[in-house]
């Protein structure tokens, strides 16, 4: 039977600190060498996997595009992914062969691509028990972005796994689902490359998640 709601739980908890844009100078704080500052003893950056890492070495690249179709040249991206076995490695250490966390940024000049040197993640189990297709969680911070945007990158050579992924299936529109699929390209040397362009607004707008 339905119980009467006698107490508001919202009164019992603190409110989260409000978000603000990371601004155009986010690099000073999170990517000092991009800003032109000296690197510190250790920096969190885009080499998530070294040569000893288990799994298939891959490079992931892409641009960030605004609603006018222009390149967003001041975006900072954070990546979070499982290892080749589908297990997260949260303990960050630059001496690890693989870290689940990385950062990258678009560039002020040229093609303005961000890139991650990593390994292809393995499938991770969903709360429902079903496997989720291999994916990389990405968070996008930029000037003009008031709360960071959260998305997932999937791989176009995982058609079967993608078709059964419980999170991809949450997206009603098959057209929109497609915005989360990175496409495989011929890479440099032995690293396979995937391209994943992030469209913040308008045509082909990337799916962003709330969780």
């Amino acid at each position: 039977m339905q119980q009467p709601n006698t107490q508001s739980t919202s009164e019992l908890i603190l409110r989260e600190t409000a978000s603000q844009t990371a601004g155009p100078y986010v690099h000073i704080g999170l990517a000092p060498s991009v800003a032109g500052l000296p690197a510190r003893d250790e920096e969190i950056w885009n080499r998530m996997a070294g040569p000893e890492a288990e799994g298939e070495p891959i490079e992931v690249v892409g641009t960030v595009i605004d609603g006018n179709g222009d390149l967003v040249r001041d975006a900072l991206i954070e990546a979070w992914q499982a290892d080749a076995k589908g297990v997260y490695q949260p303990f960050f250490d630059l001496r690890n062969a693989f870290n689940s966390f990385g950062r990258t940024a678009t560039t002020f000049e040229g093609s303005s691509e961000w890139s991650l040197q990593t390994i292809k993640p393995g499938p991770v189990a969903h709360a429902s028990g079903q496997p989720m297709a291999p994916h990389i969680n990405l968070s996008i911070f930029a000037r003009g972005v008031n709360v960071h945007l959260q998305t997932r990158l999937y791989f176009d050579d995982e058609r079967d796994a993608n078709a059964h992924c419980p999170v991809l299936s949450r997206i009603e529109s098959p057209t929109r689902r497609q915005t989360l699929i990175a496409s495989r390209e011929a890479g440099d040397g032995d690293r396979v490359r995937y391209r994943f362009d992030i469209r913040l607004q308008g045509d082909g707008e990337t799916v962003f998640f709330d969780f």
Partner: protein
Amino acid sequence: MHDEKTRFVERDRNWHPPAYAPGYKTSVARSPQQSLVSMQSPSVSEIGGPDFSGLRIGRYDNDLLLNFTQGQALPVGERIIMFGRVIDQFGKPVPNTLVEMWQANAGGRYRHRNDNYLAPLDPNFGGVGRTLTDEQGWYRFRTIKPGPYPWPNDPNSWRPAHIHVSVMGPSISTRLITQMYFEGDPLIPRCPIVNTVNDPDAVETMIGRLDMAHSKPMDCLAYRFDLVVRGRLQTYFENQ
């Protein structure tokens, strides 16, 4: 045997600024038009997050008075301590979490290759800090109070003095970047970026408070800024 099911208190999207906030002009072309897709049951991919307790933090990383010159010379500006606690929505401290910050110098100029404001760079100031919270969630930086500066939004927009603050928290779900403003600054209510936040109570969460008790006589003032990240809810299920 127990299985732990973790969730975070839902992020109140009306409390945070909306993506589209036309008073802040850059948000107009950078805001998604489609709805966010809700994950009804977040997976391990959303519940986990990086642990930076093994990151080698340099001796001066949280001391902006010293870190750019490695202690050789001091920057110009009002010397301040910026400190506070990282807690979750249930008041629980968040230990060993990475807090990063960046700011302009006392003249309102950033040490960034794209900033060409009239105010000069300070040869003794970089403007970046980072630290890990202690076991009780406390963090602390020593720095100078940044200056306000003009920016091209309205014909005459000025940013109030502010320090950008980034906190990880226990999960990528608690990830948060904000800005700390200084109590009493008359530029706060005039700022188009502050005003992306609709609820005045939410603006209050971004104000650092002068704390005379933690200031140092004949040395520096102190500003307290607590960061509240999403609360973790845990339910335990008995397995047979």
